[in-house]
């Protein structure tokens, strides 16, 4: 971390997006994480994605739990409301926030301790309810703030900095998200921003529970030989599933120049298009079962699969399940909410 304050002035020539903001307007306070932390790269990718998507910062609510990852919402989108909740409980607080006002974009930022251990129940149930959100797990396999204990996503046999070997089987949150019915499931790597930014943009424009697992090496406690979440290990074992271009709704889709079969286009609910350039052996992103198989096959080969694994662009979200009115509940007042004295008199009459 640095103690130098960020200058508030922008260079006048900084490029503005369609809603009049520069990239700097999407930044937050200076990070207090360790230099080289993968989480800071993810924050940068979030900033980039929001700026490129022309999202008004105040239309985003960012929520997190507790831990290094959960500190990061302070370091991006300083014009957005943020909520650093308690350990492992971001999903429920985000669910409530989303029910109160469906019109905002909800970013849930969590870590592997937060979501795979103490909060695994909340992760599970928020995903299976289909809460319209981007659920980002900044996954480093280790507890950073408490100095290097294994987390539940640490691979069996991986070594801690102090040399201890993890004997417990890992929780695979991507596999769980697929099984639980997430309508958008992807994995990224904090060291590959080119891949991560389009993934985040696609997740942010997706309606429904979008789950993004981002492998994010911990430079202080989990970046050594023997770790399976180090920069070196992930680079060596990264199996990038596909390259994805995100095409916003307003851009005219030109005739595809790629040979058929290699490119798959997915039109999302908001009109945006995901153009997926597939690798030869990759699976169909519209097939949940195939995605689960593919994930497990790669795992068996010792590969960390990254990219978009599954998307259902038409999945109903929690609001659709609950059939809620298409309005922010926090704007409803007495006329819409209070049935009035006459209705109460009828209720009283029925109770005599």
């Amino acid at each position: 971390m640095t103690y130098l304050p960020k200058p508030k002035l922008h260079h006048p020539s900084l490029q503005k997006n369609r809603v009049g903001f520069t990239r700097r307007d999407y930044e937050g306070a200076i990070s207090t994480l360790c230099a080289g932390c993968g989480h800071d790269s993810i924050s940068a990718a979030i900033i980039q994605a929001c700026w490129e998507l022309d999202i008004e910062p105040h239309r985003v609510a960012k929520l997190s739990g507790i831990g290094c990852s959960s500190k990061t919402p302070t370091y991006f989108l300083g014009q957005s409301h943020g909520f650093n909740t308690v350990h492992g409980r971001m999903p429920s607080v985000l669910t409530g926030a989303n029910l109160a006002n469906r019109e905002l974009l909800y970013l849930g930022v969590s870590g592997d301790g937060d979501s795979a251990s103490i909060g695994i129940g909340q992760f599970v149930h928020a995903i299976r309810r289909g809460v319209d959100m981007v659920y980002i797990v900044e996954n480093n396999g280790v507890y950073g703030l408490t100095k290097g204990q294994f987390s539940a996503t640490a691979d069996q046999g991986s070594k801690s900095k102090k040399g201890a070997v993890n004997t417990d089987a890992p929780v695979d949150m991507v596999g769980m998200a697929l099984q639980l019915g997430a309508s958008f499931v992807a994995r990224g790597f904090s060291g590959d921003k080119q891949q991560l930014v389009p993934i985040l943009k696609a997740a942010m424009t997706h309606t429904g529970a979008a789950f993004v697992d981002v492998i994010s090496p911990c430079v202080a406690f989990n970046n050594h030989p023997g770790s399976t979440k180090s920069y070196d290990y992930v680079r060596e074992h990264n199996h990038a599933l596909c390259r994805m271009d995100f095409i916003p709704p307003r851009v005219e889709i030109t005739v595809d120049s790629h040979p058929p079969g290699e490119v798959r286009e997915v039109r999302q609910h908001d009109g945006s298009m995901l153009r997926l350039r597939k690798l030869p052996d990759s699976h169909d992103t519209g097939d949940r079962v195939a995605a689960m198989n593919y994930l497990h096959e790669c795992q068996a080969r010792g590969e960390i699969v990254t990219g978009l694994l599954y998307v259902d662009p038409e999945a109903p979200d929690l609001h659709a399940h609950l059939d809620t009115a298409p309005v922010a509940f926090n704007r409803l007042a007495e006329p819409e909410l209070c049935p009035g004295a006459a209705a109460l008199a009828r209720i009283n009459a029925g109770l005599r």
Partner: protein
Amino acid sequence: MKPIEAVNDFVVKFANVNGSGSASANELFAKCILRMGVPVSPRNIFPSNIQGLPTWYEVRVSEAGWLGRRGGYDLLVAMNPQTWDEDVAGLAPGGYLFYDNSKPLAKSKFRDDVSVIGVPLTDIANQTWDDARQRQLFKNIMYLGALSVLLGIERDVIVQLIGEQYKGKQALLEPNVHALDLGRGYAEQQLQPIGLKIERRDNVGDRIFVDGNSAAALGMVYGGATVCAWYPITPSSSLAEAFQKYCAKLRVDPETGKHRYAIVQAEDEIASIGIVTGAGWNGARAFTATSGPGISLMNEIIGLAYFAEIPVTIVDVQRGGPSTGMPTRTQQSDVAFCAHASHGDTSHVLLFPEDPHECFEFAATALDLADRLQTPVFVMSDLDIGMNHRLCKPFEWDESRRYDRGKVLTAEQLEAGVPFGRYRDVDGDGIPYRTWPGTHPTRGSFFTRGTSKNADARYSENGEDYIENMRRLQRKFETARSLLPQPVVHEAPHSTRHGAIYFGSTSPSMAEAIVKLDADGVHVDALRVRGYPFADSVREFIDAHDTVFVVEQNRDAQLRSLLIEQFEVDPARLVPVLHYDGTPITARFIARVIGERMGVADVTRMRSGKVA
């Protein structure tokens, strides 16, 4: 032993088997008496079970209008062989034992000092219906018919109530009326009149008959709650279910059919309170309903909501604790716990409804207070109020009433340059201003956290910032005292140095006990606490009396502890009167304990149950 003779003043106890369909027949019995203008107060006494275990329904008939549990019973409807012995043993001497005599029972199974009334319910049912379930269900209606003749309940009243129950379902109406008349016919031809009678009066007035959980749910609808998150737990589940039912009728957009409410049955109480906290943070009115074990799980987030200052409304329908405790029995044993729920220095606002009327009122008030004070507010109901039908004043709603959304800055205010610092005490009442997410493009955003912060919501580990914030929270709590429902005082007819403080479901028994004590020359002024932190008038009441009895339904005298803590009064002046066996407190108990403490010579007479 002379048979008991009483008009409109006795207790009937139904002993049934859980799942036998007796509940609706028993409720019908209670309602018939109400329709004849005579107040009744029924109570379910039930096990933690769906089918097979014993269940009881006690109906106190009281022309005088006493709605507390009396204790004892004068007429036993013994429909459960499993509990026969203990049920019969508990019947008052001179009482009446009504039973199904289809099968002969040994003489040793009866008592000499009670009147025995046998009706061959099973035989008649078997002769009349082929279907086993029908035989079972109509047996209940048959005993209702026989009882109506014995007690003088008008047939027309029952038939009308059955008609209301099965409105539009003619196929169900006729066999029920037939079963009723079978029971009535047998009683008219075969049974002797008994000493207990219902006579028509006009003592019910415009009061309504409803359970506290339904009332609180309706209060949440009227109070503008749009988000409800809950986890099933006795005795609060029916509150969330009633909210669902009322919302489906009252909160659907008439044009689109879309819902202006969202109800989530969460995975546990931690998620319930998390959802409510998230919704409150984002400007929707939200609540959860739970019981003690749920509050235990919610503690961490309750502390977050207190420290981050987020409106949260919690209905605690209290049951017996600790741990799983007595899930189907009543207590007021979460009071001290809720007052300081969560770690660190926390203090919470509590409201104590006395009956369904106040459950409705306080539910809506709690939503206002939570918004005004930006803090968790607890409505401290209990099983006795929540799960039993109680006669109470009709619900009221003033059309001019507006929701108090508290200090929320709008986009217009922010645009006009109103300065904003989330935790600044601008008005000196300890309550800061807040903004909802998404309000203004460049102004009013802040970061909410449970860790320490300065007045502008920036992260701070500075001790001075922390202390300033904690002191402001104390000031806010002081502000709450004048905003809460104020205590209700009942002065004794003669000036006295003795007082009593009570709250919640103790109310009807307390009212009865006081009248009884007055009649015995023991005069006690009484104050019903309706909110915590306590109003100044509670202190004045304590100061005005030498001895104050604090009547409550828990072991540890929890309200008394809070009184001592807040007012730093001499504990010796606050005398605990504690009832905590899981049954609702009775006037007999209160009068006896207070009488004993005050050295009343005539204690024996009170003990015998002839008082109150």
